[in-house]
């Protein structure tokens, strides 16, 4: 309670403090289960007092190759997701009530199924004698089965499937925020539909594109289950490498160094995506 001696500013400050206190449990939890382990990890990677683990992680050709490959796969997943998701989001943003309900159902359905189950389902679908290959053969489109499993294609298909909603939703949300009168105005002022899209709608949806790309990229880079199962050991992502260091070689310090490199790479690319889309918006 406020006593007569309290200044008005003190009372105002107390209200802000009360609000902050409500956020404290969540902040503490994040601090304990996230920030602290990350710091421990960092400490572990330099346990022996040298940067030898980092040297190995960033200079050794093998590990560099895996890191580069992971970035490449994440970038491909991101690009495919973007190309596939944008039209879906665009249609959703202009669909009627039933269209939106149907689209949302289709997009959210995968969330109710575990990633593991979905990935095993892809194993059934994409195998040499899987559903996809059988259909294509029956339709006379191919003669020999396509290699869809245990290679990059399989990994990409599986990852795009899992991550697509993460691209659709931010783009959909940003498209919804655009005043529909803007594209009407553009058309009324003489723009054909495609120019109205390129000059008005697309630039204004870039915040969503950027958020979706960052989300999908970051999730892809650390992806484990899907590439491990669908890649059949031929596609190695950094996360798999880290797991291998811990499980097989019990080399915790090196795994920690790899994790740190992954974290830094993720943050760097995240910042880069933000910068590119911001630049594009004001171009």
């Amino acid at each position: 309670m406020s006593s007569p001696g309290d200044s008005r500013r003190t009372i105002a400050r107390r209200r802000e403090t009360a609000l902050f206190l409500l956020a404290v449990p969540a902040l503490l939890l994040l601090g304990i289960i996230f920030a602290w382990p990350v710091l421990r990890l960092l400490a572990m990677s330099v346990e022996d007092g040298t940067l030898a683990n980092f040297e190995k992680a960033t200079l050794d050709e093998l590990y560099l190759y895996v890191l580069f490959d992971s970035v490449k796969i994440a970038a491909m997943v991101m690009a495919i997701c973007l190309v596939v998701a944008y039209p879906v989001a665009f249609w959703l943003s202009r669909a009627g009530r039933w269209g939106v309900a149907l689209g949302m159902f289709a997009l959210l359905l995968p969330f109710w199924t575990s990633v593991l189950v979905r990935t095993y389902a892809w194993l059934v679908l994409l195998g040499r004698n899987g559903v996809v290959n059988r259909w294509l053969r029956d339709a006379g489109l191919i003669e020999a089965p396509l290699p869809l499993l245990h290679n990059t294609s399989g990994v990409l298909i599986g990852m795009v499937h899992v991550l697509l909603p993460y691209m659709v939703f931010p783009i959909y949300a940003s498209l919804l925020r655009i005043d529909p009168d803007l594209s009407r105005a553009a058309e009324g002022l003489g723009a054909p539909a495609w120019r109205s899209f390129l000059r008005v709608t697309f630039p204004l949806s870039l915040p969503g594109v950027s958020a979706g790309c960052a989300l999908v990229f970051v999730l892809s880079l650390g992806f484990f289950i899907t590439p491990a199962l669908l890649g059949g050991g031929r596609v190695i992502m950094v996360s798999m490498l880290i797991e291998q260091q811990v499980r097989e070689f019990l080399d915790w310090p090196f795994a920690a160094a790899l994790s740190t490199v992954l974290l830094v790479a993720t943050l760097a690319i995240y910042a880069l995506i933000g910068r590119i889309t911001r630049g594009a918006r004001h171009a």
Partner: protein
Amino acid sequence: MELSVKGIVRRFGQVVALGGVDLDVAEGEFLTILGPSGSGKTTLLKTVAGFEIPDEGRVLLGGEDVTLAPPRRRDVGMVFQNYALFPHMSVAQNVAFPLEMRRRPREEIARRVAEALRLVELEGYGERLPRQLSGGQQQRVALARAIVFGPRLLLLDEPFGALDRKLREALQLEVRRLQRRLRLTTLFITHDQEEALIMSDRIAVMDKGRIEQVGPPGDLYARPATRFVADFLGESNLLDGAARNRSASIPGFGAVPLPAGQPDGPVTLLLRPEALRVAADAAAMPCRGQGRVVETVFLGQSAKLRLALDGGGEVLARLSLRPSDPPPAREGETVAIGFAPEDLHVVPRG
């Protein structure tokens, strides 16, 4: 006629949004479509702009049938209700947009953008983003963007709604001056009757998907053709009575003379509040009655009185006031009420 709308019908399921609308706007004319929300005025505007395709009827622009033409082929400049400025483009880029879409040379674009910004008194604001401008300034940018390419027709969709009163009045006059100077054929949509009276050469009053009456503001105000127009445009007292032998008996006022040629039967008479006089002023009036003051509202330059007539029913009187005048009447007081018969208007379709 620069714009001709002929027999436009638009249905949405069972709802008839436009039930056969005919309208002509002459070159350089400022025509206002005035109607309550749901009257179909926005659907009509969208049909003219090309965002709606009518079920029946035709839209002609400068004699050319554009009923099925897409918006970009109509050369119509439109100012949207919320301006619809492109938020990621500067003021100059916004204004340049229609010229770019028409692939004008770069020097011409620069020259015409500067010219348009000068017309709306926004020189030097070209580099700003719309969100860095006030509501009134944004509105002017929208106007500049709509006229910069020399459109055949300017459409204004309730563009003053979001502005505060003072600014709204200033902009209304500014837009009208600009429209007259450039002789822009203009179709203006509003639900605000005062705004319609201030700005228009002619007003078309719409209700339930139909145009009730078209005419100059003064005509519509003094001689409304329908009960709806009489009621919607300005404040009104609508008195129902029976006509016999060129006079009508109205409850509370007795018999009042009617113009020649008025057939016998029920009539609706319009009496504007400013035609009424009360208390001492009423004595000189040929038609007189009596009533009790139910409510008085002080409005500065005038006062509004709601009066319960002795013969039953209520009327509204508006009395102009000079600063030195005492209050015209107190609530609860019984006063004489009078008017001159020439201020009565027989509403043809009461």
